[in-house]
């Protein structure tokens, strides 16, 4: 189950079957779960895609399931399906970070569109994550001195100023600089800043 797919969780078998058929006709990979419990039991950290969650279910409700997911640190986009009168609940869920909600009876094409958008976002997230991991791995290669020099480069300072601040010669600074560029696999200070910002902004999240 490493392939990204839409996880449909609904206690009504007909709905699951119908949605599976619908997604199949739009070439969206999907998996169905008869209850929140069964989904949570099977869930692995590496799973990608999105979750389509019915709010009103036997046993664990959709909202509870959503809370458990977030508690476990799982960031999969969640789309709620709400019945009539459940809208306030869905809005509350949205505020907690749900991706979207769609009211029953829904326009099926809309649902598929939302799911596709969610899958795309998740894919982007995954990519960003992968990039960040790479950058972090490259950063780990830098020596303490090289990191110092890098911070000053990121601050936009010239080699001369850096040499003055660190009390080293210009030549040494240049040597460190080329080493940093080499280790970070970039060709310019601008590229370096982009890479590092990617990691830092995520980390600040």
């Amino acid at each position, binding site marked *: 189950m490493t392939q990204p797919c839409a996880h449909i969780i609904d206690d009504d078998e007909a709905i699951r*079957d*119908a949605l599976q058929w619908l997604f199949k006709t739009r070439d969206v990979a999907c998996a169905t779960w008869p209850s929140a419990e069964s989904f949570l039991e099977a869930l692995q950290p590496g799973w990608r895609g999105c979750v389509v969650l019915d709010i009103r279910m036997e046993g664990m409700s959709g909202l509870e399931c959503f809370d458990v997911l977030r508690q476990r640190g799982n960031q999969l986009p969640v789309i709620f399906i709400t019945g009539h009168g459940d809208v306030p609940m869905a809005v509350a869920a949205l505020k907690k970070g749900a991706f979207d909600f769609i009211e029953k009876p829904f326009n099926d094409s809309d649902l598929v569109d939302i799911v596709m958008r969610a899958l795309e976002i998740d894919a982007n997230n995954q990519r960003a994550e992968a990039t960040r991991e790479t950058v972090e791995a490259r950063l780990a290669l830098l020596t303490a001195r090289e990191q110092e020099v890098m911070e000053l480069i990121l601050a936009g300072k010239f080699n001369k100023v850096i040499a003055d601040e660190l009390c080293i010669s210009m030549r040494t600074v240049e040597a460190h600089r080329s080493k940093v560029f080499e280790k970070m696999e970039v060709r310019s200070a601008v590229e370096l800043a982009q890479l590092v910002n990617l990691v830092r902004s995520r980390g600040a999240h």
Partner: protein
Amino acid sequence: MSGRVPCSSQRRRTLPPVYEATRIYYIVDIHNTGHGRAHMSPPRTTALSVLSVRQRRLTAVPYLTVLLFLAVIAALVWFTRSYDEEEQRATLISDVLWMEQNLQFKLERNAAQLAQIGQEILAADRHQPQASAALRQLVRAENGLVRVMWLDAAGRLQGAVPPMGEGEMIGETLGGQSASSFRLAQALERRVYGQVYAAAGDRQQFEVHVPIYAEDGFAGAMVGVYSLHDLVTNELPWWFAERYRVSVLDSDGRELVAKSKIAPLSDRQSYSMAFDPPGGGLTLQVTAYQGETRWVQVLLIGSILLLGGILIWSVLQLRRELQRRHRAEQALRSESLFRRAMEDSMLTGLRARDLDGRITYVNPAFCRIVGYSVEELVGRTPPMPYWDPDFLQQTQEIHDRILAGDAPPEGFELRLRRKNGERFDALIFEAPLIDAAGRHTGWMGSMLDITAQKRAEELTRQQEERLQATSRLITMGEMASTLAHELNQPLAAIASYNTGCLNRLEQPDIDRSELKDIFDRIGRQARRAGDIIRRVHDFVRRSEPKREPLDINLMIREAIGLIEADSAKRGMRIETDLEEALPTVAADPVMIEQVIVNLVRNGMDAMRDNPPARRTVRVGTRHEGDTLVVRVADNGTGIDAETGRRLFEPFFTTKAEGMGMGLNICRSIAELHHGRLGFETNPDGGTIFTLSLPVEPS
């Protein structure tokens, strides 16, 4: 008896103020326990304390008077006694003086006679027979003389009467002392009394020497020998001796002679005086005998003391009685104040009436409840001002029942009216009033204002009804929501399948078997939806009417019986105008009853704001052709066109607590019975609902 008169007059004078004070106090108290109590003012307390100070002063008066009276009596007795004594003493002194005079006179006379006789015997020197007779006459016990002797100028004894006996010594008569007296008399040329001496036989004697002069000078002396005893005793008249003890004392205070009898002597009534001329320091002492006990006086004083004692005792008794009474009064007053505080603090109205039904007492709570003042109520006879004019007859009946002693012991409720016209419900208990003598004097009634309580009960009931209505609504809402969800599921599934199919159809290669399978599933979901609808239908079908031949008039009477209590409470009347001998209809009795109850209730709701005169729901039945028509007419607000259009829609209502299902259900029931429910405007104002039911073919 003289002591008693002032005593009783004292009593008359001093005691009444106390009684009067007590009576005044009683009057005050009676006034307090009376009807005017509710408006007693605080200054009464100071008046009471002033009264008690005055009362205390008044209480002290009799004691003071009694003490003063006794002191005066004692003074009087003492004064009388001392006066008496003074009198006695004066008498004594005058008696003594008289006696002394008497003695002096006797001595003088004897001396004069001695001189005369002496003249005849000594100067004439011849013994005259008449002189001897005179001498014998003279020497008698009455005169105190025991012997007369005559001496010549040389002092020699010439003769004596009675003559001197053999045994008697001349020396005795003419001893040293006698001789000196003789010489003294000769020298002084006047009579001289000698010293008292003891003679034979323990007799005290003294002599008087009377010098006799002839032509040739001193011729001798006549000597009279007095017996002191004889002189004193014989000289005293009987009454004097009876009254006094007379004694003669010498200069040393020795008693020489005493005339006494055996009787106690008074220690105070005594008088002494010098006894001259015998001289020589003799003293005549007269002592009164102790007077005979004067029984009358003793009795009088005794009775005064006794009566005084009784008086003090009775005053003390009276005082104790007064104190006891005072304490009882205090206790009574405290009790009465306590009771009054109780009555005043109570929220329950209290009202006492006599046997004629006249109000004799009301407490502040009662005044507060009915809004009339004490003055406006006390003394009133029925009909009372607080009776509700609308229930006058009913109230009078209850009143009569109470006076007849027929009051319900568990109390009764009555609608009364306050002074401001506001009506209120009162719960009243009556109990007979029995006075101290055990007589039945009237009725004591307690009254509770239960308006608020009843209002609260009514409010609770309404709230409960509203709550029930709400809960019914909630249940219905939940049912609708569940139904919607149930139907939504298959419909949503069908929609999804359908969209999927459409997606497939837009793709170039179509797998027919796959589509067929999906269409199967669509069909299955459609059947599922159908099943749900069927279940609902089955549920509804369960309330299909059971039909039985029904007397519609009977149904209407039963339905009205159900809501009569409610209508009376809301001040509504229900009138019926039922056509007799109606044919039966085939109908479900419970359902028809429900329709009639609903329509009547709607009519009453519509007349909620009407004046009491226009609060009548009229229910009538008519046989028109092959239908029975039930008309329920009200004079309410009527139904406007917009409301009329939506009247039978479910969930449409004009009432705050309405559910909007009543008329809808009624119409459904009418239709179930193949009848019709309609409405028209009442020409008298309001609306007429008509329920038409087909007559059962006979």
